[in-house]
């Protein structure tokens, strides 16, 4: 490992997560490749946006990185330590440094625990604070996310979606993590609330110096919050670049389609009709580029050979045979 790599808080290498369909009377062992060989790194203090359509494996990737789902293979270096090799107890001790914010604020809070218990559980489990100290700490954290200390006594169902997401964020920041993986933290919320939560996340980043892996299907949101953006398609990263750069010159046809699909306010600014073809089941593909069936530029080579992620200069990586 050379010197410059020490800046990386998280390095993910060749991460794979395959799901095997188990059938009793069948020997069909062809896996669903939810995450298929993804590699990326995040520098300390940086925010990496991970975008892709639903079902492309973003959430699975996020959960696999924290080993909430056990990855099939690959390496995950967190602060230079490969967390794939850690046993349960070692991993548990490392948990406070990396946290997760969940997509669905209705699913991610235990309905039978008070907010104070939910937010204070990490403090208690890791013996950071107990008793009155814990109560004070929880109040402090609740205020940081824009809730009232009194809310600690209430149950999750008494809150709205946006407030619930604040509780989820409070839980995630309660142990002062370094890395936070935010899995579509605003997609379940009303548009009017989305901006508030996004601003909260950005404020917290500025104040507390978090590093984010920000997962979303919404390019506009990702652009707003991210330094760099990785585009995922069917379990693979097809393009990764600096946010500005990606928007200025999207190189992969999929990224281009995604960008064109962003609704614009000015009708005159409408681009040429997006060539996105219908979505097709991907397990039917035997070989070649995963995007071939939907790609407007698909050619013979795309059917035969799978493109690999290559640097096109300025850290702009693309997996396409025909990058102009």
């Amino acid at each position: 490992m050379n010197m410059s790599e020490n800046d990386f808080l998280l390095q993910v290498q060749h991460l794979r997560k395959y799901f095997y369909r188990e059938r009793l009377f069948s020997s069909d062992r062809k896996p669903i490749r939810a995450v298929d060989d993804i590699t990326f790194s995040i520098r300390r203090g940086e925010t990496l946006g991970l975008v892709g359509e639903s079902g492309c494996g973003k959430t699975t990737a996020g959960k696999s990185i924290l080993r909430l789902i056990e990855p099939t293979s690959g390496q995950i270096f967190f602060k230079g330590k490969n967390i794939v090799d850690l046993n349960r107890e070692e991993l548990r001790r490392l948990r406070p440094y990396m946290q997760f914010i969940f997509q669905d604020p209705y699913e991610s809070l235990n309905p039978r625990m008070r907010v104070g218990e939910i937010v204070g559980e990490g403090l208690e489990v890791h013996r950071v604070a107990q008793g009155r100290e814990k109560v004070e700490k929880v109040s402090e954290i609740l205020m940081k996310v824009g809730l009232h200390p009194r809310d600690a006594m209430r149950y999750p169902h008494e809150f709205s979606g946006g407030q619930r997401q604040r509780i989820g964020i409070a839980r995630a920041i309660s142990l002062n993590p370094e890395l936070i993986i935010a899995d579509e933290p605003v997609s379940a919320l009303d548009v009017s609330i989305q901006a508030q939560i996004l601003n909260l996340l950005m404020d917290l980043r500025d104040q507390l110096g978090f590093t984010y892996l920000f997962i979303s299907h919404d390019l506009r949101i990702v652009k707003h919050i991210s330094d760099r953006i990785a585009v995922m398609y069917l379990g693979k990263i097809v393009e990764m670049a600096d946010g500005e750069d990606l928007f200025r010159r999207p190189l992969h046809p999929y990224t281009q389609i995604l960008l064109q699909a962003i609704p614009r306010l000015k009708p005159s600014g409408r681009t040429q009709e997006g060539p996105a073809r219908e979505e097709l089941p991907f397990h039917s593909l035997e070989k070649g580029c995963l995007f071939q069936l939907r790609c407007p530029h698909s050619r013979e080579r795309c059917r035969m050979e799978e493109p690999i992620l290559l640097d096109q200069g300025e850290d702009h990586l693309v997996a396409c045979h025909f990058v102009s």
Partner: protein
Amino acid sequence: MEQGQLKSFWRYFKRNRLAVGGMAIILVVFFIAGTASLIAPYDPGKTDVSKKLKSPSPEHFLGTDQLGRDVFSRMLYGSRISLSVGFVAVAISLVIGVFVGAVAGYYGRWAETILMRFVDIMLCFPSFFLILTVVALLGPSMMNVMVVIGITSWMGTSRFVRAEFLSLRERDFVHAARALGVKDRRIIFRHILPNALAPVFVAATLDVATAVLVEAGLSFLGFGVQPPAPSWGNILTEGRTYIFDAWWLTVFPGLAILITVLSFNLLGEGLRDALDPRLRGRR
């Protein structure tokens, strides 16, 4: 349970008149069992051969048996035994079933395989004959009956709890607890179990009915609660000899068993149905 959920649960439950009736009857039986010593007109063990086999009269509500004991008083005391056997046996089976199901469902892999195959094996025994054999070996007593019913009837609960754990352990709030570094034991007891218990208790209501029935069956066969202690089952047995001369000796304990078991079943089904839409509409 949360206020709102409890309210809607009660609203659903209330609509089911049979279940509400069942619950009312069970409450009455409970009350009777609790106050048997106060409301019983006679000592259930007091014999008076001069008054044997009297038919129901204002003096002896449900008649007397072959030793002149008051059947009504004996049945009041018998309700204590039936209910305690039912509840203690179900409590034992719940503890075992929840433990086995929780371990199998949470840890999965080989723990699950071993435990669930053991459940399959246990289910292969015709349970009544298994109970009969064990009680015959250990000797019949109320305590043995409770324990034996308990340790032979937990399999359904464990399967149920396992299924609940399987689905709950993949819920985001459990992932969140794991991400915080909460230990397994705490995840099981604080996060998963409280969310799995409501349907388990509902199923347990139905199990109480079965346990009451098994106790009556065992006592009837002479392997349950031993006379002179009165239980609905053994009152029935003793009356069997006189079934043509003294019908009240068999009909009333039989009815008591029937009504109690029916009430538990109606209540259990009502609770289950009321719980279901809530599970489906869980949000």
